[in-house]
Structure formats: C-alpha cells, structure tokens
C-alpha cells in the first residue's frame, strides 16, 4: 500500500485493500479537510468514488468516537431514488466492516411509523430530501434533533442549487448551521464550468470560512459519435424514427445500453418501435417518471443484476444512480446541453480511467448540427453552466413561517441568517420585512387581517407562531414542489369491485383530453381508456391497436446558450461544412444560393409569401422559450404597425411569424429593438395565463393558498377558490405585492427566458441581415412544417371561442 493509507484507521485500510482498492487522492483530501473541520465542495466526474469520498470522513468519525445516539450525519439528495440507492451503497462498507453505525433513509414514501421513530430515536446517519429537511426543521425539538450534527452532505448540488428547491435548502442550511455551529458541509457535484456559486452555496453564513474546493482527477474523455444515418434525415420532428434500425444494431453490438430520450412520450414510442424490430428478443426495458414506483424498481433491480441489454429512459436516470455495467449510452434526439450530455454519458463505464462511449442520434437536420456541436463541446471538455438565481420571495415567506413554527425568532438575527444563504446574499431589508408581513397578515395595505395574524410579536420584539393550528397548517404546506393534479392509470380488473393494478400516473389535462375508447401508449403497452373513477383513469389492454400517443410536456429542455452559439458557428463556418453529413451540406449549400448564410453573431431574417400568406422567419438559435416570448412581442408590434399578423410558431432554432400583409417593408432594426422588453412585455404579461399559473404556484409555496385548496381532488362540496380570480383582484389593488413580484420572477425565469431574450436582442443589434425572398428557403422548411402542428396566437383563446361559436351558428343555420 502507498503512503496515503495511514490516514485511515486499520479497519478501513484493510477493507480497502481487501477489495483491491486504494484511497484516491481526492478521497484523502476530503478526509484531511474534514479532520480540520472544514467544509468542502468535491467536484468529480461520475464514477470517481464521489459518494464514498463524501461519506468516508463521517464513517471514520463515527468509528473513532462511537455513536452518541444523536443524528451525526445528514445526507440530502434531490431525488428520492438517489437517497435510497446511496443508502444501499453506504450500507455495504458499514456491514462489511461491522461498524456500529445506524443508517436510515427518509423520503415522502417512508411509512409514518418509521418517520415517527426517526424523530424520537434518530439514526446516526439520515439520508433524505430537501423537503423532509424543511419539515423536520419546523418542529419545536429541531434544535435538539440537529444540535449534535457534525456533517451535512448535499449530493448532486450542481443539478438544483439554482432552483426553488435549492433556494429552500439554502435557507435551511443557514438554519442548520445556526443550530449546529461546528457542522461541516460537503457538496458533491459533477463537473461544472464555474464552481464559485456552489462554494458560496456551501458557505451558508457570513461568519464561516469559505468552503474549500477539491477536484478529483479528470476521467478519460468519452468517445462520442454522431450517427450518420443512411436513411433520409427528416426535416422536422424529434423521434429519430428513421434511424431506429441502426440504433437497434448498436444495442445488439453492445453489452448494456442506456438509451436516453428527451420526453416521456418519446420514450414510449421508441420503446414500442424497438420491440417491433426485436427479432433477437433482447431484454429491453422502459423507465420514466410516470411509471409506477414498483415498475421502476423492478427495472432498476433487473439492471443492477445485469439481466437487461437496454433501457429506454428519460431524465429520471440522469443523476448519479449507479446500476451496473453500462458500456454504451445512446442519446435520441438533441442533447440540449453539453453538461447534460456529459452527465448522461457518465452513466457508461463507471471506471474513470476508461473512456465511456456514446452515440448521438439526431431526429432532424437542425438536431444534426446540435449533436455535432455537442460532440465538439465534449471532446474539448467544455460545459455550459446554470446561472445562479436570486432567491425567490415566496420561498422566503414559507421559510419565515417555518422558523416561527420551531421557535420564536428575532427579525434582525433572522435577516442576517437569511443573507448568509447564497441565493439571498443581496436580499434587501425591505423585501425581508415585506416577507415577514406577508407571513403574518398576507401583507396587504388594507390591514384587514391584523386579528388573524399567523405570527405575532412577543414583548421582546421577537416573532412567534400564533398557535398550534397555524403550525400544523404550515407543515401540511411545506416544500416547493407544486404538483399539477394527477390521475392514476389503473387497469380495470375482471372482477367488478376489486381495483386493478396501478400502472403509473399522468397529468390531469391528459386524461381530460381522452374519450372512452381512445388508445394511448403507456408503460410500454397500448391501453384503451375506459373511464374515470375518482382519481383513477381506468384502462384495459389493447394490444395491436394503433395508439393515440400521449405527448407529455415534461422533460423538454431548451438548448443551452453555450451549445446554441456552437451551432451558429457551424452554420456560419463554410470551410467546416465538408465535415458534415452530405444531406446537411446540400441543405446549407442551397440555402447559401437562394438566401443568406448568417455570420455567427448575425440574425438572419427572411420574408417570403407562401400559400397566400406572408411569412417572416428568423433564426436566433436561442431555444424555444426565448423564441416563444420573442414571437409574442413581435406579433404585438407588427399588429400595431398594421401588418395584421395571424400567428407564430417557435422552434428551438427559429421563429416564424405569418400575417395577411407583406412584411418585407418592415423596419427590422426597429422591430427587433430591445425596448420591446419594456412596456410591450408588461402589457402582454398582464393579460397572459402564464402569470396566473406561476402566481398559483407561488401562492401555494408562500402559504397563501393551502395545498388542499389548490387543485387536489376533493369529493363532495369542498369549497375552494380559483387562484386566477385572486390574481386579478390582487393585481388591480396591489401590483407590488410580494406574490406578484415572485410570480413575475418565475415567469421571467422559467417560462419566458427573459434573460436569454435580452442577450439575443443585444447580440443582434446592428447585426440584422434581412433577405426578402420570393419563396420559402431551405432553412425555413423545418419551422414551416411545425406550423400546422400548433399555432399560438396572442389572443388565441378569444379567437377560438369566436370562431367555434361562429361555426356553430353557421351549422345551426344551415338547412
């Protein structure tokens, strides 16, 4: 053994050498750092022994000092499945070394009796989720429960530090650090381009030394190739069906394949199609977030036993769950981001010294470009980062009430504590005070609710929760995940009364769109919808029928900024075209002949007539969200200038607007001017359903509306109320209310991609290239094909109401 071993107690050193392992340098660094009581961020590629490195200091500690009967190590994971999986992995060294350590996991699925026991007889190590941490902190005994905590491990930190869940956990970490001042924090993360925001996150108090950065040695660069299909590459769509036989061959040639797709509906389709061509009867399974937990567990178990040859999966398998010897990762459709792709490829070959291999299968021509861009990014080790987000106010309001539920708080001290949490580092005192007032009375200028205050001031000027009922109500509402109402998909049993087996869940709107007799793909089979009973959608099996395919919205990611700029460069760089598949090359050559190839920072705008309508197509390559917002704003402007736009369609790469009048005479520089983000955006948002959706979620998170009021099904005549109506009234009387600010921030960030649009408009200012054409250009074809699939018009609902009604009257009047 080498010189590193003395860092470990002999029992541990023996265990390592019995497995033929040695302590890796980053694992040693973690031990040394922990021994000095320091917090640290460990950045390691998948397969770097990250989990063990995170837990090792705690295991050694507990072995050296023995269990005190109090909670010593808290592990927080963004995924329930990951918490369970890591529990299993850490259990192994504990059992094999016979360590006197009790380890348990706790998630929303943990039975109530066990959760009770975990409260009264805490394990040495608790593996859980951010929501459970928030819940545990609301209890009065939280100071005692967490007071002896020595170590907090936050896993997959890169994946959620910038989300609302990340913001809530950051606030809770600040609270934990107050309860256990000497606790050290460990963050585990995949490779990120900039670790600074994560280091800030792991330093949740301004009085603590900044967390240290520990990097594992880099793994081998993966072998990535883009499938150059012999078949014709489609102009639009994402299914990559044209290449499935080639995909099947790749699966056949590999030992074990993970096949990633971007949406659940695509997972279903791909899985079906593979089975249709599966002449060798290869064991191929399906895994996505709508499937029943049992079903998913069975697939996971089969995979870790090596009983499968391939799994078709969505982002549910993105994070570091380690289930066996995958030697090939296939990405169907565009990868959307270099970091995401690296993460997925990391699923293959969990040994850092061997390169993993991946095959990218683009679904259409633009996706070929995107895949080639991603391939280039990976081979350079380039990554795209997620920007830190300013801490949301609805989450803060929830946290304030939570703190009060546990114990009275001094507002000045809490303000300081909250500002220690990285997302709230620059929180203004006025915003904090507004959040306190919101938690107390709803924060309305009309002070109607003084006597219903939820938190009240004590004589010392501290705040405490008014009574036990308020605390109870808060606990039911804790967390930041607001679920859309969902239905169980359940097989109708042959016996009339007994309920059949549950196959999984799906969103309410999907079930609402089904008529009895409709067929759809789910859990890999064709099902026939029979009817609804309570919260169950009852189905029967309908093998051999042609399914009406579900199109879940979940899992659609926008193209990252970084990858988008690479795609723009590929299009612009004519010298590099020779390296492209020939179909792509021809496509770009013709584009060059009939229109313009834009420079890497130029925006090409084409105008042309087609089918008696006039089109304006532009190509920002900035992702569907930003394009959709741009489309909304452009059509408003065009309407004002009398062009009479009729509709628009955004894709990941381009935006098409059409109208009754020729748009070639429009002043493009004025049309694309940045000032559209001012009044145009405000006035559009004021009417949009989008704000109502984000408002509803914020209202639930902030505790204005109880979860049970917010859309959960209730039998009988439960009185509820509509968040939309509340939104309208609040907007009229208090446009600066905390919840409206929070809803606006959510809309701008998550649905409108305002930051991206801002970047786009700034980039193209003075760089517009307008090409007035007489007919559709090659680059425009993909977006033109999308137009019949979906149409989003400014006041679409209104127009549809009117047209449907007109059609109805016409029908009624016809003899």
């Amino acid at each position, binding site marked *: 053994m080498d010189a590193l071993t003395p860092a470990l107690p002999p029992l541990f050193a023996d265990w390592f050498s019995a497995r033929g392992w040695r302590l890796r340098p980053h694992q040693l660094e973690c031990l040394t750092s922990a021994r000095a009581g320091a917090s640290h961020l460990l950045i390691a590629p998948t397969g770097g022994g990250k989990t063990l490195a995170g837990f090792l200091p705690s295991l050694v500690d507990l072995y050296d000092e023995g269990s005190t009967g109090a909670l010593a190590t808290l592990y927080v994971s963004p995924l329930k499945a990951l918490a369970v999986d890591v529990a299993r992995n850490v259990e192994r060294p504990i059992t094999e070394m016979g360590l006197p350590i009790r380890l348990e996991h706790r998630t929303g699925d943990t039975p109530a009796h066990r959760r009770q026991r975990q409260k009264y007889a805490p394990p040495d190590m608790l593996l859980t989720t951010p929501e459970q941490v928030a819940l545990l902190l609301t209890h009065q005994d939280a100071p005692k429960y967490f007071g002896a905590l020595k170590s907090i491990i936050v896993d997959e930190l890169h994946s959620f530090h910038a989300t609302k869940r990340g913001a809530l956990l950051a606030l809770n970490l600040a609270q934990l650090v107050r309860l256990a001042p000497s606790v050290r924090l460990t963050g585990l993360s995949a490779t990120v381009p900039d670790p600074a925001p994560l280091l800030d996150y792991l330093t949740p108090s301004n009085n603590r030394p900044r967390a240290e950065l520990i990097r594992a040695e880099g793994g081998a660069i993966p072998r990535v190739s883009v499938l150059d299909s012999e078949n014709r590459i489609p102009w639009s769509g994402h299914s990559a069906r044209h290449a499935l036989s080639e995909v099947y061959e790749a699966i056949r040639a590999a030992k074990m394949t993970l096949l990633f797709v971007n949406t659940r509906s695509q997972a279903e389709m791909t899985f079906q199609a593979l089975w249709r061509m599966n002449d060798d009867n290869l064991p191929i399974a399906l895994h996505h977030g709508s499937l029943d937990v049992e079903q998913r567990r069975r697939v996971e178990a089969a995979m870790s036993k090596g009983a499968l040859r391939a799994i078709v999966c969505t982002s549910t398998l993105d994070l570091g769950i380690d289930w066996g010897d995958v030697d090939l990762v296939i990405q169907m459709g565009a990868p959307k981001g270099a970091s995401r792709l690296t993460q997925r490829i990391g699923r293959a070959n969990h040994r850092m010294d061997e390169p993993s291999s991946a095959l990218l299968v683009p679904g259409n021509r633009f996706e070929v470009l995107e895949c080639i861009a991603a391939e280039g990014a990976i081979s350079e080790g380039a990554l795209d980062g997620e920007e830190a987000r300013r801490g949301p106010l609805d989450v803060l309001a929830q946290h304030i009430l939570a703190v009060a539920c546990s114990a009275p708080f001094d507002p000045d001290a809490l303000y300081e504590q909250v500002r220690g949490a990285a997302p709230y580092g620059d929180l203004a005192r006025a915003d904090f005070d507004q959040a306190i007032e919101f938690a107390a009375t709803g924060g309305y200028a009309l002070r109607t609710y003084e006597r219903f205050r939820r938190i009240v001031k004590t004589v010392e000027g501290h705040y405490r929760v008014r009574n036990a009922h308020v605390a109870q109500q808060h606990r039911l509402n804790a967390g930041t995940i607001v679920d859309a109402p969902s239905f169980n998909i359940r097989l109708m049993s042959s016996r009339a009364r007994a309920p059949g087996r549950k196959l999984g869940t799906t969103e309410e709107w999907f079930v609402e769109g089904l008529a009895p007799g409709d067929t759809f793909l789910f859990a890999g089979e064709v099902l026939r919808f029979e009817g609804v009973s309570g919260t169950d959608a009852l189905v029967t099996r309908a093998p051999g029928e042609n399914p009406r395919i579900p199109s879940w919205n979940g899992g659609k990611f926008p193209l990252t900024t970084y990858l988008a700029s690479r795609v723009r460069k590929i299009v612009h760089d004519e010298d590099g075209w020779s390296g492209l598949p020939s179909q792509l090359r021809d496509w770009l050559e013709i584009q060059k002949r009939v229109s313009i190839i834009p420079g890497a920072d130029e925006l090409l705008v084409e105008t042309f007539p087609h089918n008696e309508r006039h089109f304006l197509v532009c190509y920002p390559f900035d992702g569907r969200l930003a394009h959709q917002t741009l489309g909304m704003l452009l059509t408003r402007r065009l309407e004002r200038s009398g062009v009479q736009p009729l509709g628009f369609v955004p894709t990941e790469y381009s935006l098409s607007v059409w109208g009754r009048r020729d748009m070639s005479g429009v002043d493009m520089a004025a049309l694309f001017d940045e000032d559209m983000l001012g009044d145009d955006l405000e006035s559009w948002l004021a009417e949009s359903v989008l704000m109502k959706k984000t408002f509803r979620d914020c209202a639930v998170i902030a505790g204005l509306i109880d979860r049970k009021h917010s859309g959960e099904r209730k039998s009988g005549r439960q009185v509820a109320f509509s968040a939309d109506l509340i939104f309208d009234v609040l907007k009229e009387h208090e446009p600066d209310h905390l919840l409206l600010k929070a809803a606006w921030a959510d809309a701008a960030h998550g649905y409108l991609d305002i930051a991206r649009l801002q970047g786009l408009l700034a980039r193209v200012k003075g760089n517009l290239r307008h090409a007035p054409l007489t007919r559709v250009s090659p680059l425009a074809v993909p977006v033109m094909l999308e137009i019949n699939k979906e149409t989003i018009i400014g006041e679409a609902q209104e127009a549809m109401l009117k047209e449907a*009604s007109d059609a109805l009257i016409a029908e009624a009047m016809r003899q």
Partner: protein
Amino acid sequence: MKAETSEFCVNGERLVALLSGALFWPAKNTLIVSDLHFEKGSNFGARGVLLPPYDTRTTIRRLAVIMAEIKPERVISLGDAFHDRGAEARMDEDDADALAIMTGAAEWVWILGNHDPEPPVRFAGAVAEEMQSGALLFRHEPQPVPQPGEIAGHLHPVARVKAETRLIRRRCFATDGERLVMPAFGAYSGGLNVLDDAFAPIFTRVTCHVLGGTGVYPFTGAALVADPPNAVRIDRAAG
C-alpha cells in the same frame, strides 16, 4: 347595444347579457346582478387563509362602471350579495360608502339569498324573497320545476366549451328561452358546470352565453363539455 353583448329572449322579454356578467332588461330599464358575495375574501381570512381582502372593492368597482354606462332606473341584486351574516359589518368604510352611493343612485331591490337571508341594515333598497315584474319572476334559487319567466342565480353557472383543440371554462348565462340562471358577479366567485346534475331539473336544452375576454358567445348542445368527475368545484357557493 355594443358588440360585447349577447341578446336573447326569456319568456318573451328581450334581455341583454353583458360581458361583465350583469343582465340588462331594456324594456324596464333594469340592471340585474347575482351572487355578489361581498367579503368572501375576509371570510376565508378568519380561517387562516389570508386571501387579498379586495374582492368587495373590485366587485363594487365593476358594478359602478356598468351603472355609469347604462344608468338604469332600477337595480335588482338577485341574492347572496353578502357572503355571510357578518359580511356587512366587516366591510371597509370606503367600500361601504361606495356601495351606499350606488344604492342611492337607482331604485334598488335586494332579493334575499341563502348566504344573506337577512336584509342589509346600512344600505338602501327594497327587500324581497322574490319579485314579479312583467313577464319575469326574480328569485335567488331556481326552482326544480318548470318556471316560465324565472330569473335566478345561486348556481354560478359556467360552461366548458370545446373551441378547436382547447377546452375553455368560463362563466355564462344559462337559458332555455323560458327561464334564466345568471352567472355569479362577485370577484371571487367561480362556478358550477351547466352539465352538472344540479341543472338537470331546470333545463332540458340549455344555451350558454359564455363570457369571453371581449365578447359574449352563445354555445349549445354538443359544444358543451362536462367537468372531469370529482374535479374540484371552484366555489360552489351553494350550501
């Protein structure tokens, strides 16, 4: 009348459905509103759900706009004007003053409802359980037997209609030409689908004049869609 209205006859009387959810009866220069539910927000506040306490203000403002435009001789409030017995006392003074000005500006009729079985004490107006005027009979709860000329509220009708590929759920006037159920006017009042069982004894063939964003649109028969079973019934204010 303007484009944002829908006209129809009930029991031979020509009526105009306004976009706001109010009804105008030109022959008698009468404006009818139903289910104002003043102080519904503060009613929830007492139970720890701190809804914005501005619903009364919004409802009064919306009503004031219509009154200024139409200048009716008479206004009929069709019951459930106050969300509960304590509502009148909880009203903000500014709101109460604004309402008092309105009730003094026209001949006002308070039809009593199940939420407000007692007449208001601070506001002017005649009080009645029900009232016959010409061919129309005004009362709060529609009776489950044929009632030609009945104009009622209580049920908060909404229609869910299929418009191309989307389902849109909006408040509506529900009528069969014989009688009418008014939409709720209150700012926090949602509704009950016209295909719900509660409407079955009232209409055999219903036409819904649906309140859109800029117009009132008639729908009937197959264009109407039921709510999914057991879905939350947003403010079924009955009971």
